[in-house]
């Protein structure tokens, strides 16, 4: 409750409160243009409150069972195809926005991760995180998600190879700002 109150004061709920007020006022004064907006809002809302908690529960359970330590132990070992595979696995178990991955690549770089694998990690992180795939399958369907992942995989591997080729002879380093 306290958290919610503090959020209202922070302005996160300001539109929601305003919208609620508009709904009440439009009811009282019979403003008909609001009702289609309200109707679509409730339709979207009903769908989201049934879908989302289930998805988030699934994501939470996947998160606690994901063998993160086991994957982390394999990072840096094994080059070539195997190295790429471990990098992708590591990225899939993460969550959050892309800029959250930058500090992680700094640590990977310090540990001796190759240029190619750094960009493989960024590619997989941005497109193949498990929580994201859960949402994608739930909202846009398994076919969409499979196709998207299937086409994305070679694309970010090629991007990583190009980045490696380009940065190979330059003095590339990752800095922690």
């Amino acid at each position, binding site marked *: 409750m306290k958290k919610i109150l503090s*959020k209202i004061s922070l302005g996160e709920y300001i*539109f*929601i409160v305003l*919208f609620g007020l508009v709904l009440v006022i439009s009811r009282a004064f019979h403003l008909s*243009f609001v009702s289609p*907006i*309200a109707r*679509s*809002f409730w339709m*979207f*809302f009903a769908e*989201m409150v*049934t*879908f*989302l*908690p*289930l*998805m*988030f*529960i*699934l*994501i*939470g*359970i996947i*998160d*606690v*069972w994901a063998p993160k330590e086991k994957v982390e132990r394999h990072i840096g070992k094994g080059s070539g195809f195997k190295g790429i595979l471990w990098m992708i696995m590591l990225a899939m178990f993460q969550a959050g*926005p*892309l*800029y959250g991955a*930058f*500090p992680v*690549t*700094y640590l990977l770089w310090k540990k001796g991760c190759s240029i190619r694998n750094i960009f493989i990690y*960024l590619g997989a992180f*941005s*497109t193949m*995180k498990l929580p*994201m795939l859960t*949402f*994608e399958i739930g*909202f*846009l369907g398994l*076919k*969409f998600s499979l*196709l*998207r992942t299937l*086409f*994305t995989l070679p*694309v*970010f591997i*090629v*991007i990583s190879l*190009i*980045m490696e080729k*380009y940065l190979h002879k330059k003095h*590339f380093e990752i*800095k*922690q*700002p």
Partner: protein
Amino acid sequence: MNFLIIVTVSVVLISFFLDREKTFTGLKKGLGMFVNILPELLNILILVSVVLYLIPQSMLIRWLGRDSGMTGISIAALTGSISLIPGFIAYPLAAILLKSGVSYGVLAVFITTLMMVGIVTLPLEAKYYGLKTALLRNGLSFLGALIIGILVGVFM
């Protein structure tokens, strides 16, 4: 929907039999995430309800529908590259747009550019990798995202 219920319930049950404590941690974590995104989600739902009311569906279909061609793809690529929307919000939004007549191809371009290209975060990225590297990664990702989006659109 039913599929999601079945999967979630069975995963939770299996997890519960294997390890009660872990399951509770997972449940708490998941529901905590849901509560965290709730205000942002409600804001987006309000915004979308208002915007979809203001923009007639025929116009939405003309600009972003199945036959919108390069126009739809360009709009999707630009919005996707510029905006910074978390996946938890982007996917519900995409599902609503899909029902309103936006094509799979346009949505795929939007989603992939959103995920792989970050114009707003470019300065931050440049601090880690250098400006040239950051520009190159974003440029290549932009091209890649276009290819992925167009291919998904063709096969859906």
